[in-house]
């Protein structure tokens, strides 16, 4: 936390080194979160790229009020939601259904993952985005339900519900596949 505050202070003074350190520290965390939310490697990479570029652009005036990790997770989540909305608009315009999330496009990464994780990603793509967001931000993002509720502008009980229903749905989907 203190280290992050120092890095942010240095970024405000134009330190390229501090900016690189923040990137190194959080890049994998953010990519995991983005890919978990979107299910698409290329889109997840774009989001991480865009968040860091926007952060660098505004670093001179950036004020860190909470944790940097939480701030970056919120940025990833907001941008992922924008992408989901864009997909919906695109699908509406084409008169088609929303395409399912494609999963990893990177064959090497795909091969490196266990079959179980691949099934998990497929199952994640089939639950509503709000539920996926609550699950990912809580379990991978390390955010509290209260923080997620503030981010999604809903009550804490709603977030609890989304989280619980999401996990139940994932369990059904995964058990269904196992039973096949």
């Amino acid at each position: 936390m203190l280290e992050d505050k120092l890095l942010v202070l240095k970024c405000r003074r134009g330190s390229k080194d501090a900016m690189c350190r923040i990137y190194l520290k959080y890049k994998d965390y953010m990519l995991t979160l983005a890919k978990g939310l979107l299910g698409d490697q290329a889109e997840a990479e774009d989001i991480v790229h865009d968040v860091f570029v926007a952060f660098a652009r505004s670093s001179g005036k950036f004020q860190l009020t909470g944790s940097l990790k939480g701030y970056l997770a919120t940025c990833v989540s907001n941008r992922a939601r924008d992408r989901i909305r864009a997909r919906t608009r695109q699908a509406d315009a084409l008169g088609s259904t929303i395409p399912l999330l494609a999963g990893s496009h990177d064959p090497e990464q795909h091969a490196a993952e266990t079959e179980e994780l691949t099934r998990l990603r497929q199952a994640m793509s089939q639950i509503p985005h709000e539920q996926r967001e609550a699950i990912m931000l809580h379990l991978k993002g390390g955010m509290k339900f209260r923080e997620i509720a503030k981010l999604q502008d809903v009550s804490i009980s709603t977030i609890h519900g989304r989280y619980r229903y999401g996990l139940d749905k994932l369990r059904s989907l995964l058990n269904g596949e196992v039973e096949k």
Partner: protein
Amino acid sequence: MRPAEDIKKLIETLSDKTSAQMDQRVRENMLRALAESEKPSALTWPKIGRTIMKSTITKLATAAVIIALIVLGLLEFIDTENKSGVVWAEVARKVEASRGSVVRCRETTSFQPSDETDYSITYTSPRYSRKDFYEGGQITHTYYTDLSSPDTETITGVYHTHKHYLSQTYQKSRNEFFLEQHEDWMNPRYLVQKILSCEHRKLGQKTIEGVLCEGIETTDPASLGPLPGPVTRLDVEMRLWVNAETEYPVLFESKISGEAEGKAMSSEGVMDQFQWDVDLDPSFLEPNIPPDYVDMRTL
């Protein structure tokens, strides 16, 4: 049935790694965005080592003009006192001609944690400078600056805590603010110019650690150079003490306070333990990167 706990654990094992290609793309665009955004906020306080002179050519030209003015006696018009033993033109000339210098720097600010480092030691030659940052008696990181090119400046940061290093070459014409903050603070040769180029007064004599010294002081905000934003209630005090016998600086003190964006800010700095006209081994000033240190670009 698979229990929910298993699914939570499975989700927690999700782990994606960025590719080298992505790292390069993000780093390039991120650093470009940072450089473009370096129109600093008013909350960014200039380091006390900043000088009003931006480019090396301007610095040298200004130094020459100041020395000439002093020799001609024109600066006597803006002195509130005169006639002391130290010839300040000679101080400026000697500092400028110094083959190498060593100085300890300490700075505390109201906006930057004071525990970042305890102090730094800067070694400067006309071609290179090296700045070691100390915390608890240990060097935490070192910045090496190659000043030999007229157009570019290469800064290499070696971070001992994490065994990382990063070397970047900057075009002087495109990074004035960044370089100004880094190079000038390390370069004690501009201290005399900084004060003499502004309205100043002589402080008379004082004994510092058994050495008879003479001082000058400026309270002219122009000594800070162009400020990065609107600052009100700006108070500046800079004092330079020079050994009356050798006419080399021995102590530089600064106090700056002001209000930016509604917030009170202050900075205090001391540069002491000077050594002037020393021969510094060039190999000591060139980047020394231990073989097990990792280039941050490859991480």
